[in-house]
């Protein structure tokens, strides 16, 4: 009896302890707590924006509805529009937590790590097509980067790995930063300051910089950090040899000592050459490192950099206080990309309409009182076009065939449409005539909008219980919104009295119009 009681008691105690731990732990990690921190940060930056708007007597644009907000988050984090399945899920959540929950869900999705890794990689390594060995190494690099993002690795640590790693390209994929820039000291020098510090020193390669303070010696000194890096049988290694460059006056070449273009006190005196450069680049007191990254992430989320161009902070003007505040916040968070993303999507700008209250001025957009309207990047249009072919989300969980078709068709689309390579990634571009024709008449559009049992439009035609539902679903799938009254009326009228084939055709026409609309191919 007593023994039994003792057992009961100990079990009870254990249960209580575990329960208590769960409760305590849950409280400690309760979203509300981490949110409150991010919310404070977001509120502080929102305050700065509001001051700017008041100073310039600008009214912020109205807030958009949750679905459009969800569309912006999806396009930014996974590069596609939400599926009908996603939309129904979001609608089932309480309004006040939708944005937070949707962002969290996507941040935990492997698609986010893959998509963001590719975006960040474009600033770091070349994307030359057609060189198989190069393509493999680049792929390894991007996959490694994606792993780091999904493990929530602090950004400064990640960058130190990228700049300083040694070893085989298979075993230590980060070394492909070196091979991905053809192990050229000059390329690596300009790439490093451009990708990680948002500075352009390239012009100083050949002559002193015409617009900024860079001298040719600054460039050579930076290249010097990569001068003793060799690629051989044992992968990327630093060797003891001196770095000499061609010089008309020096027979043996001019000896270059590694040096940094500014803040030399931040450069460690000990260690491997690239490790020293990595430490200097990511040093908390290096004024550009964090700013360059938050500006880039801002551009990926909003479609337009906070200060433009994204890789030329030296000549960029305006919004300095917002950039600094965001940078401070990112540093304080321990270089946590997830938190940075939460802060940016919580800003009033991210939720602001892209339609302005006055159609006469660009001031609202300049001051970030409205969401900037930008054209979607090629991969965003391509993936969205694939996503609308299914009512369900195409993600890690999807069947292999579905995933393969998604990937393969996206690749083909981007190839035909024209990819934006390397550092041009964040340069705003409009649509050109061949792209317009491709969207109107191309095979990819045709496939995405055709009827049939195994395609989104076909299923809508067959399965929607009535015309209104069919129209609503098509709108939700393509534009992540419901149709206006006028739109619903227009399409219901077209759909009425259609059957089988004619109904399929009418739905195909509806999808074609949605896909060719400005709303579909723009971030708005």
């Amino acid at each position: 009896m007593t023994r039994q009681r003792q057992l009961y008691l100990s079990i009870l105690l254990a249960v209580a302890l575990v329960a208590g731990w769960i409760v305590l732990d849950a409280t400690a990690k309760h979203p509300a707590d981490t949110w409150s921190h991010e919310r404070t940060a977001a509120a502080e930056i929102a305050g700065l924006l509001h001051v700017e708007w008041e100073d310039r007597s600008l009214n912020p644009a109205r807030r958009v509805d949750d679905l459009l907000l969800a569309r912006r988050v999806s396009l930014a984090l996974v590069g596609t529009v939400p599926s009908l399945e996603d939309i129904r899920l979001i609608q089932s959540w309480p309004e006040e937590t939708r944005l937070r929950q949707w962002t969290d869900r996507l941040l935990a999705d492997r698609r986010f790590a893959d998509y963001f890794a590719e975006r960040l990689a474009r600033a770091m390594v070349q994307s030359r097509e057609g060189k198989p060995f190069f393509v493999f190494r680049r792929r390894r690099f991007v996959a490694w980067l994606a792993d780091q993002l999904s493990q929530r690795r602090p950004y400064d640590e990640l960058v130190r790995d990228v700049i300083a790693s040694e070893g085989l390209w298979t075993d230590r994929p980060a070394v492909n930063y070196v091979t991905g820039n053809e192990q050229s000291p000059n390329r690596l020098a300009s790439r490093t300051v451009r990708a990680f510090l948002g500075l352009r020193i390239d012009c100083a390669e050949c002559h002193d910089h015409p617009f900024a303070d860079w001298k040719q010696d600054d460039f050579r000194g930076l290249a010097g950090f990569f001068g003793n890096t060799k690629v051989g049988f044992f992968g990327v290694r630093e060797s003891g040899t001196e770095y000499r460059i061609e010089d008309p006056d020096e027979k043996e070449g001019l000896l270059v000592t590694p040096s940094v273009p500014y803040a030399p006190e931040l450069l460690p005196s000990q260690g491997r050459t690239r490790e020293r450069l990595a430490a200097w680049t990511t040093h908390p007191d290096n004024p550009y490192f964090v700013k360059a990254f938050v500006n880039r992430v801002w551009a990926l989320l909003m479609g337009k950099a906070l200060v433009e161009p994204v890789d030329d902070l030296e000549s960029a003007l305006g919004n300095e206080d917002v950039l600094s505040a965001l940078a401070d916040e990112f540093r304080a968070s321990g270089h946590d990309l997830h938190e940075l993303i939460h802060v940016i999507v919580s800003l009033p700008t991210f939720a602001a309409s892209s339609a302005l209250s006055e159609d006469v001025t660009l001031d609202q957009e300049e001051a970030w009182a409205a969401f900037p309207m930008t054209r979607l990047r090629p991969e965003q249009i391509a993936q969205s076009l694939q996503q609308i072919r299914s009512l369900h989300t195409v993600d890690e969980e999807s069947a292999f065939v579905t995933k393969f078709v998604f990937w393969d068709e996206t690749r083909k689309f981007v190839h035909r449409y024209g990819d934006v390579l390397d550092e041009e990634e964040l340069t705003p571009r409009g649509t050109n005539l061949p792209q317009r024709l491709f969207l109107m008449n191309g095979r990819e559009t045709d496939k995405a909008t055709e009827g049939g049992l195994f395609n989104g439009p076909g299923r809508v035609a067959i399965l929607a219980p009535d015309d209104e539902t069919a129209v609503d679903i098509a709108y939700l799938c393509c534009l992540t919104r419901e149709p206006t009254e006028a739109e619903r009326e227009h399409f219901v009228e077209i759909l009425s009295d259609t059957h089988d084939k004619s109904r399929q055709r009418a739905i195909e026409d509806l999808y074609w119009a949605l896909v060719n609309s400005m709303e579909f191919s723009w971030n708005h």
Partner: protein
Amino acid sequence: MESLSRRHFLGTLSLASFGWWTSRALAGAERLSAGPSRPKSLIILWLDGGPSQLETFDPHPGTTIGGPGKAVATSLAGAQFSELLPRLAEEASSLSVIRSMVSAEGDHARGRYFLKTGYRPNPSVAYPSLGSICASELPEAEGALPPYITFMSGREALGGGDLGETYDPFRVWDPIHPPQDVVRRVAPGRMNRRLRSLELIDGNVRRGRRSREALALRREQFDNALALMDSPQLDAFKIEEEPARTREAYGETPFGRSCLAARRLVESGARAVEVKLGGWDTHANNFDLHKPLCESLDAGFSSLLRDLRERDMLDSTLVLCAGEFGRTPKINGLDGRDHWPKGFSVAMAGGGIRPGQVIGATDPEGTKSPTDPVQVSDLFATVLTALAIDPAVEFVTRDGRPIRLSEGTPLERLLAT
């Protein structure tokens, strides 16, 4: 966006909400005038990879650098061509040749950028390509034709850069196939229904959006796309309409067919056309590899010149033949020649270029610099001036800096009076 105001679309913008897209389809079908009063056009023959000057326009037969090939005489004073270009040698009186081009870029991508834009790559500026400059600055293309058309080129064609995507090239591959995506997939009636629906959806975006410019451009683009889809000018791409004899003369190669289509397009009112002939990067086996390439070039280029002259279109059509650099005088161990930006050749004819000029000479030993060296920027200034485009005209970069179309000085010797 001053260039836009010249364009038709402002006129059509005020039309009723739909129906604006058919306005251009019927224009431009009529036969255009010939002779020097015709608006100028440009055809670029782009030799990608870097052709050897020694196996084309600047042979040095019998020297250590000359290789096994021979040379043929031309009517140009003191100039011979390689024996691989016999038909061009016969047409030499129409041509002018610069044999002393010097560039500072010996890498394909950078050299291509330099020779295609007139500027060395600079990360702060997206310089427009020569074809895009012409698309923007020459009188508008007739009818529905895109302002700048390329054959056989991928991304390396480069585009409008900071002039805007309006001047990006319309890319066509071998004209043995019709251009892609210009055929509507549904019947005209159904297409019109689609467009009416589209107009309704777009109406929502238009409200309150600052993007008037983007919206105006978008309209113009639909307008242009639909006009092109309906245009009888698409027939210009149909080289099968040409007599077999003509097609044979141009050569049954992608390059020959593209040259023929280029002539048909210019005749139909196109302003800038580029034809690419790739494969010149002959680090090994230079002499064997140049034979078929030169054969294609010789047939296409010479037929183009003769055809343009016979149709009285040569005075109004500038033909420019260039690659990103030349090849080393020194022959390497693999019987190849490597990249050589320090003295290579460019040939041109027609459209305001004075024929019969030979500029510069390279060293028969291959060691000294060429005489009368010509900078890439000066070549650009010359071509633009010949086409009556002022090189001093400025465009504005994205970050607001004004940049001249070309910073070079035109070579007076090459300009027709």
